[in-house]
């Protein structure tokens, strides 16, 4: 019975695998034709010029505006939580749940903003300093980066302090390079279980993210001459993740046997 089940499962997997491979090949062929046409008619250069122009002129202004808006939202959530914390009597579970939820939102939003601003900083340093005619935009870009880094760091620091005042569990300075390690190690088993589950979700997603990023980087290099650096970095990152995963698995499997 079990072997029949496995046979059925295997045949389903093989059919899906072959179908996906064919779909990828078909999509790649279509993209190849599109990119060939783009290259042949010189559309690529027009796209690159337009993209660069937009990047130099409008993106810094858009980033600064978005950063200000996100800052205001986070500040509002933090101020609301801070007020609730002062009112909290140590008994009302609905209030503390709401408060923790808002603080979690501030943390999540500011962390995502930091990653996005790093992406923007990378773009800005790649193309921003090339054109002398875009000095104003470059200055706005630098202001946007500095402003975002300052407010996210300051707000995250306040959130950590407020959480510590409420729970007295673990405290770490956001400027500490070992911030996450210190925070994780200070958590109890229930909180750690949430971290383990979240990390597992991340690992599962990373396999697909790496595969898609690898394909995109290869296409970029082939048709837009973006260089092989992206492909190398994605593969190195993938390799590092795989080695870390198997090393950790081996370590925990054999823990206590020596």
């Amino acid at each position, binding site marked *: 019975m079990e072997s029949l089940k496995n046979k059925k499962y295997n045949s389903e997997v093989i059919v899906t695998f072959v179908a996906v491979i064919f779909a990828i090949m078909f999509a790649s062929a279509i993209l190849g034709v599109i990119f060939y046409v783009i290259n042949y008619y010189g559309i690529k250069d027009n796209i690159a010029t337009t993209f660069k122009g937009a990047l130099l002129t409008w993106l810094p202004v858009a980033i600064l505006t978005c950063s200000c808006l996100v800052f205001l939202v986070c500040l509002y959530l933090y101020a609301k939580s801070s007020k609730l914390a002062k009112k909290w009597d*140590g008994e009302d*579970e609905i209030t503390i749940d709401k408060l923790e939820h808002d603080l979690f939102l501030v943390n999540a939003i500011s962390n995502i903003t930091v990653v996005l601003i790093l992406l923007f900083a990378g773009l800005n340093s790649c193309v921003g300093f090339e054109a002398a005619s875009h000095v104003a935009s470059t200055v706005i870009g630098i202001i946007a980066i500095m402003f975002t880094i300052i407010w996210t760091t300051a707000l995250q620091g306040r959130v950590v302090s407020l959480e510590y005042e409420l729970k007295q569990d673990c405290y770490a300075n956001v400027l500490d390079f070992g911030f996450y390690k210190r925070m994780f190690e200070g958590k*109890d088993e*229930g909180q750690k279980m949430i971290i383990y589950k979240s990390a597992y979700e991340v690992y599962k997603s990373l396999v697909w993210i790496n595969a898609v990023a690898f394909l995109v980087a290869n296409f970029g290099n082939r048709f837009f001459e973006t260089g092989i650096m992206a492909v190398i970095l994605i593969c190195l990152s993938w390799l590092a993740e795989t080695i870390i995963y198997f090393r950790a698995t081996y370590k925990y499997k054999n823990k206590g046997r020596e």
Partner: protein
Amino acid sequence: MPLINHLKEQRARLGVNQQEMGALVGTSRQTISQIERGDYSPSVTLALKIAKKCNVRVEDIFEYVEE
């Protein structure tokens, strides 16, 4: 969920809130809240600690029900 628990009742019997219960057994309020909601099954160590603080047996708080 095959594991049901009576932590909330035991906590009410002791007259402590989640924060205080967490402090009694050396864990956080969130973990107590997760256990009460049935979202988290505690380790044997924590279950024993909770039972000890409540002056009852582990089986009086945590109950395994066959599905």
